[in-house]
């Protein structure tokens, strides 16, 4: 479904991503793990169009999406969440989801002028759909509240809901466990599995190996900008390169 081919990215003289190659199959939960600073978020920024790669290609369902603008990539069917949550805090939960859905409708000047006359039915359908999306992450009861009133864990779920609203095929989830306690993390992983069971493919970044081992079917390991291993969770767990990346070469009692 998503093929990352030889992606390289330099910042100044520093090579942050070095010839990254991997493929995500449709319907799976793919985990990308690696220590902090390994280049994980840079990789997401490139896939979602916020950064351009120095070299390489990204193929999504046989279409080359390398270097497209972020909204075009959203339109192609890839949405994402951020490590530092970026919901619209001044808006209600429902409005957050609606803004995500509006891409599906045109923003032409004419539509603006005639918006007031638009059939109520259409607006109602949109709202019902937004409720459905909120109920996937079990937030529909709070639909009318301002997003800033949510707990940290709930804000993450709302961001997931907004990502769902753009009708993606692939969702990139950036370090969902960051800043959450173990109970919240576990709950959120449950949500991600539930979302995945609704035919959404998910790619998850995480630096904490334990978080992803349980839910990912395949895992890629990024270290200093290079993909050092790929495979099932069990294979990754026992891979000497991975153990070295995480624990260091000299095990001085750490």
């Amino acid at each position, binding site marked *: 479904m998503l093929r990352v081919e030889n992606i390289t990215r330099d910042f100044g003289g520093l090579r942050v991503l070095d010839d990254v190659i991997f493929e995500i199959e449709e319907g799976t939960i793919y985990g990308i793990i690696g220590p902090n600073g390994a280049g994980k978020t840079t990789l997401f920024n490139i896939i*979602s169009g*916020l950064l351009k790669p120095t070299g390489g290609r990204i193929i999504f369902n046989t279409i080359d999406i390398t270097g497209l603008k*972020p*909204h075009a990539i*959203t*339109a192609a069917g890839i949405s*994402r969440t*951020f490590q*530092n*949550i*970026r919901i*619209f*805090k*001044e*808006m209600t939960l429902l*409005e957050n989801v*609606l*803004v*995500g859905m*509006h*891409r599906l*409708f045109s*923003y032409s*000047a004419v*539509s*603006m002028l005639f*918006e*007031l006359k638009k059939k109520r039915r259409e607006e109602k359908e949109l709202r019902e759909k937004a409720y459905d999306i909120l109920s996937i992450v079990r937030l529909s009861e709070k639909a009318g509240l301002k997003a800033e009133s949510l707990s940290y864990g709930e804000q993450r779920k709302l961001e997931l809901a*907004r990502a769902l609203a*753009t009708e993606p095929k692939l969702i990139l989830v950036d370090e969902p466990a960051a800043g959450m306690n173990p109970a919240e993390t576990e709950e959120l992983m449950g949500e991600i599995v539930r979302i995945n069971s609704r035919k959404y493919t998910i790619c998850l970044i995480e630096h904490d190996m334990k978080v992803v081992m349980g839910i990912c079917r395949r895992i890629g390991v990024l270290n200093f900008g290079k993909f050092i291993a790929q495979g099932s969770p069990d294979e990754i767990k026992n891979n000497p390169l991975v153990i070295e990346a995480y624990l260091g070469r000299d095990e001085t009692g750490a």
Partner: protein
Amino acid sequence: MFYQQLANALALGAVYSLFAIGFTLIFGVMEIITLAHGAVFMVGAFAGYTAATKFGLGIIPCLIISMAASGFIGFVLDLVAIRPLRKKKFHHLAPMIATIGCATIITSIYQGIFGAEAYRFPFDFVPNENYEFRGIQLTQLQLTIIFTSFILMIMMIFFLNKTKWGKAVRAVAENSRTGALLGIPVERVYQFTMIISSSFGGAAGVLTGLNFNTIHTFMGGPILHRGIAVIILGGMGDIRGAMAGGLILGFAEVLSVAYISSDFRDAVSFGLLFLILLIRPSGIFGKKIERKG
């Protein structure tokens, strides 16, 4: 007497609110202060005046023409002065300077055409009738001003909260990059914000011209200062704050004229604003400054 002053203050404050609501929206969405908003106000007043005297139109068509003219000026301002700087990512100060330049150019052109004298709307443009509510005299003019201002402001609030474009504007105001990622056409939202905010400024120009029964090419300066005070008082970028701030300033001015002295009008009202800001530095509805991610 006191209640009578309140009625006068309401008419004055409503227009300040109307002017400030667009001013603060531009700041909230585009993160710039456009110092041409006073000139836009003046253009709106003259467009309304021209429509009334040259074409003999009534107040509603005059308002519509004024809003169209000032909205167009807002669009041009964005196109020539703000957008090129936005593209180069000079976000805050450069557009402010650029809009000072534009304001000067616009004002000079109008002085070339209209000179420095004061103009008046035609006699009985708004019928000269009085209404009395429980001892308070309200002229039809005051009622018209209050009514028009509040209808426009309610329309703005409805637009921002209930429509798709309104939600897009609010989303961009909070985080333009996330908005862009979700497919909101951020550039068009900016243009649209300039147009609608400027048209509100223009409507305020017509209403001010009616209220004081005079319009002139320098009228943009004083309102600009008040507008800045109002949006800071209300909390930068906050629509409700701009409405409340405009009314507070209107009341402060009218009451200081009535009970102290007209010489001290600005000193008293701006002194009051300063006091409020000492207590609430981020404005009435302002939030603590929070960095956008």
